[in-house]
């Protein structure tokens, strides 16, 4: 089932949580709402669930207007950030809850409920835990109970609020892959909220990057990572170096090197040139045309790549990531004068004129 959000706005007092947001989620898709705290991503999720109501705009579920419908009537599965398991109920009772509260006419028989619960617990690999209380489970197990509980109502849509936020790194990675498989097997339409770009890129079919109550970009993980549409997305998707320069006759001058930015920024304006650390080349010899002079500040060789911190002649701090082979060949020394140049870059116009 698809979700359509049409020009939704929402304010809490003076705080504008969402500003005129549009979003389409197609049947069977797994979509990530990615953004920093306060970007409105959780509010948007709760509005889709019917736990919060928009001040303006509409929400369509399966092309039907659901804006006025309560959470009860929307039949969406919601997994809460801190799981919100019923603390006084066993795992079994937690999962059975959604079926037990149905009106008598729609309620499955007792043994049918029990069968379904055990099926779901098997699905989330917790079948032996039916009698436990939530307080007797680990974080990852609680998370899976919350998921089974949400799935018990046979939701048309699964919504997850920071599903891995409270887990430690290893459990988080395992659970992430497992959730992806589950989503595909059950043919769900899912939306999850996260502030971790790595998580969004790894798990989602499409990523919705949000900032200050607006959607900055919607795209596949590839698109938002390699072709960020705005400066915010560029900065949010991972570490990045920024070179600022004034544009004259189509070129931006950075520390003695010139870059052709005529396609992106007009003459007389400031350009911000974004380069990811692994796309910054370092060498002792200058390249013809576009080499920026810099001095090596620090070298961190531990890890899959070697990280080099440099300061340009203009005083800007930049980071480069070299492969271990390149690092061994180069043997950079702290304090050494070198040249850097971007292999690839994203250029945005500064909001102001220098």
């Amino acid at each position, binding site marked *: 089932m698809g979700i359509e959000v049409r020009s939704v706005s929402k304010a809490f007092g003076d705080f504008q949580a969402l500003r005129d947001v549009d979003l389409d989620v197609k049947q069977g898709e797994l979509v990530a709402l990615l953004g920093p705290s306060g970007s409105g991503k959780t509010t948007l999720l709760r509005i889709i669930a019917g736990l919060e109501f928009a001040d303006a705009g509409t929400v369509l579920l399966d092309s039907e207007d659901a804006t006025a419908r309560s959470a*009860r009537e929307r039949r969406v599965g919601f997994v809460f950030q801190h799981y919100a398991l019923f603390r006084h109920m066993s795992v079994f009772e937690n999962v059975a809850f959604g079926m037990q509260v149905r009106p008598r006419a729609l309620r499955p028989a007792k043994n049918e409920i029990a069968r379904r619960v055990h099926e779901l617990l098997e699905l989330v690999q917790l079948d032996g835990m039916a009698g436990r209380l939530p307080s007797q489970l680990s974080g990852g197990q609680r998370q899976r109970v919350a998921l089974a509980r949400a799935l018990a109502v046979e939701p048309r849509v699964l919504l997850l609020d920071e599903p891995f936020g409270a887990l430690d790194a290893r459990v988080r990675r395992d659970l992430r892959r497992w959730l992806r498989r589950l989503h595909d097997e059950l043919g769900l339409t899912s939306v999850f909220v996260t502030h971790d770009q790595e998580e969004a890129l790894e798990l989602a079919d499409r990523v919705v990057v949000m900032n200050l109550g607006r959607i900055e970009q919607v795209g596949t993980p590839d698109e938002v990572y390699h072709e960020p549409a705005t400066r915010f997305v560029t900065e949010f998707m991972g570490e990045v170096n920024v070179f600022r320069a004034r544009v004259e006759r189509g070129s931006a001058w950075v520390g003695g090197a010139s870059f052709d930015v005529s396609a992106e920024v007009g003459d007389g304006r400031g350009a911000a040139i974004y380069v990811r650390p692994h796309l910054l080349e370092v060498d002792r010899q200058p390249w013809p045309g576009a080499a920026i002079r810099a001095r090596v500040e620090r070298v961190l060789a531990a890890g899959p790549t070697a990280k080099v911190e440099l300061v340009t002649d203009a005083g800007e701090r930049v980071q480069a990531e070299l492969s271990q082979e390149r690092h061994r060949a180069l043997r950079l020394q702290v304090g050494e004068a070198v040249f850097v140049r971007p292999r690839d870059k994203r250029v945005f116009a500064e909001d102001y004129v220098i």
Partner: protein
Amino acid sequence: MSTADWTLRSFAEPPPALAAARTEPAWVRVTLIGVALCFLGTFLILPLAAVFVHALQEGWDVYVASITEPYALAAIRLTLLVAAICVPLNAAFGLAAAWAITRFEFRSKGVLVSLIDLPFAVSPVISGLIFVLLFGLQGLLGPWLREHDVKIIFAVPGIVLATLFVTFPFVARELIPLMEEQGADEETAAVSLGASGWQTFWRVTLPNVRFGLLYGMVLLNARAMGEFGAVSVVSGHIRGQTNTMPLHVEILYNEYQTAAAFAVASLLAGLAVVTLILKRLIEWRAGRRGGVV
């Protein structure tokens, strides 16, 4: 919860080094423990024992006679009646107040929270006087009540009202911090799973606060049965009609029937002991279920 667990455990089994660092010289320990025991004995155990000793000083028969004579029985019955009305009503009010305060944002919420504490803040005598001024013959509603032949002051309704007022904060005070800490997440989850408001209340809200509620009700009951000041003002002390147990004790004492007075008082003292045991029991049960009181 996990932090609390940790704290408890670490107090139970202090690591050796820490235990040594915390150990005081023997004479300091003996003195401190001695002072504490003396204080406890003088102010808590001695009076409690005195009540029972005095109650039984003229023998078991006098004791039984004192608590089974008609006026004493009437006082016991009235006290039980007042408690039977006040405990469920104030449990419901307290739960409603705690729910409204912890689950909704509204203006003047702070004022409401302070108002709940009002009965604790004013002297019980004043609590009684409020009702005399409202419902008494010279009171605000007095003439209207007399016309319609409704008697509140110097009658049972007045006693119930005064007790309700004095005991209002117990349950609310107990539940507000508890519900605040638990948050509304579980209730929201219940609604998202399709539960109605009523189902959410009975299956999620109430079970989550049941120990806190019970705890508040035990304290509320003890106060409802033991309240003296406010009830004294509105009761009129009519034997067999508007005399509660505490008032009955006072009358007997003023008439130099010491043994009888202490016999009835021993029932109230017994109530206190039972209350304390129940309180401990609830705390222990709640602790075991991972709930918080």
